[in-house]
């Protein structure tokens, strides 16, 4: 359908109601109400007539089927990632019911309050800024249809990857490489680095080091989508600016003795990079993010469509863990970029 056709609210409001609105501030309420009524009538009649002209045979059934298909696909996705998180015997009990029973026990009343969501997000941001070591597992919930292996840009697997984070700008991401070994990408706050390890093929590869802290993030989910996956502070700030954030209705419930704050971010615009939907579960007391789900990642020759990041440890790591020297032999060649 051509977009140059104006809908009646555009037509009507642009022709007369805009002026009416300006004038109506000085007119009596009855005139304003009449004007509103005319506009409302126009909108509904336009909808009825447009529908009459555009509807196609079997349209309703096709719409219903499309919705139910999408819902079933989503239902299939949920058990998969929950299944990854839970013990096998629990999976058998029925994941949806288990999630409800396992995770949540209280419902907060004002779940839809933008203010409350914003305050929670600010709290999480503040906490993330001064946090110590956190280790996350990354799982791919769903991949886009696989491209031909030769077209695949990154042979590193995100599924099963491990992310270590400290403070606002230190991280190490360990990813398996499909043909053996691991790719390590990291940053100690001053230098970013990348290398392959445990790979007989690449054992003589140089360690790549750069003072550009975003230099080696191209293989990370989120970075290519303008949402720095590993820099939680940046990511959370992006959430504030580019996403509609609201509290999840299940927020406030207890998980393993912790009251969890749940936030849902829906991308405001398709023009913005990043996943369409981000779900964050954080300890309400400490602000530590326990789980982050990213759904609807932009397609890039296949790759993950949905990811989950799950906190697995807060054990303190060696001071120099985020430096590249902790992960390779001293005699390995270094290439500064």
């Amino acid at each position, binding site marked *: 359908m051509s977009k140059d056709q104006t809908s009646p609210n*555009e*037509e009507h409001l642009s022709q007369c109601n805009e002026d009416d609105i300006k004038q109506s501030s000085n007119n009596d309420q009855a005139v304003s109400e*009449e004007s509103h009524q005319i506009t409302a009538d126009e909108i*509904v009649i336009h909808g009825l007539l447009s529908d009459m002209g555009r509807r196609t045979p079997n349209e309703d059934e096709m719409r219903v089927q499309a919705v*139910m298909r999408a819902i079933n696909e989503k239902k299939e996705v949920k058990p998969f990632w929950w299944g990854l998180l839970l013990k096998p015997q629990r999976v058998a009990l029925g994941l949806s019911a288990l999630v409800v029973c396992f995770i949540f026990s209280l419902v907060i009343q004002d779940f839809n309050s933008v203010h409350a969501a914003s305050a929670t997000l600010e709290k999480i941001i503040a906490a993330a800024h001064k946090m110590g070591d956190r280790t996350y597992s990354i799982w791919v919930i769903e991949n886009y249809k696989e491209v031909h292996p030769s077209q695949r840009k990154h042979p590193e697997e995100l599924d099963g990857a491990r992310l270590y984070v400290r403070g606002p700008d230190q991280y190490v991401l360990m990813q398996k490489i499909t043909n053996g070994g691991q790719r390590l990408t990291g940053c100690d706050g001053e230098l970013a680095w990348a290398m392959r390890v445990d790979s007989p093929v690449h054992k003589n590869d140089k360690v790549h080091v750069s003072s550009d802290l975003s230099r080696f993030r191209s293989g990370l989910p989120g970075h290519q989508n303008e949402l720095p996956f590993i820099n939680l502070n940046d990511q959370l700030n992006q959430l504030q600016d580019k996403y509609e954030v609201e509290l999840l209705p299940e927020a406030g419930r207890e998980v393993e003795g912790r009251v969890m704050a749940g936030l849902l971010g829906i991308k405001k*615009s398709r023009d913005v990079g990043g996943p369409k939907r981000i779900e964050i579960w954080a300890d309400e007391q400490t602000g530590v993010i326990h789980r982050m789900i990213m759904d609807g990642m932009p397609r890039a020759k296949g790759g993950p469509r949905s990811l989950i990041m799950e906190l697995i440890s807060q054990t303190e790591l060696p001071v120099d863990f985020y430096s590249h020297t902790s992960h390779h032999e001293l005699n390995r060649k270094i290439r500064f970029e």
Partner: protein
Amino acid sequence: MTFEILVRENTRMLTVFLRSRSNDEAAVDDLFQETMLVAWRRLDDCDLSRPFGPWLRGIAHRLVLAHYRKQKRNLLPLSDEILEMVDEHFENIHAHPGDTWDEKIGALHKCLESLPEKHRTVVQERYLEDEPVKCVADRLCISLEACKKRLQRARAMLAKCLRLKGVLATGMKQA
């Protein structure tokens, strides 16, 4: 299964609602799907003892606004009063006798037939043949503004007719 019933019961209403707000059919398709999926995700938040339609239209309305923001197109904001009146119309149609949406709005055909010929023609070409207003104006050899005015008048007459037949809500001054 319960949700599928809700989808079936509200498909036509939601489609009409979305077509009342957007002329872009691809957007209508996307918004329909998105509205239903949001409703499904938030079904627990919905008080099913109350009418489902207004809740669904509330979701759709927010998604329409978001869509226009994404498109960087200006859609003049509709006041709460207008939105409430639109909602009253949809609820009135819902409550109107008839098993299906088409039965409930069956009077629209009769109202169309009762329009003066020049108004019926402009509606026929603009809507039933789905022609852009400019093309309709050119075909009828009238100015674009005159064509828009004629369409506006035709819609007003149809609204009055449907109101008299009890399909649209009584409203305020138009009754």
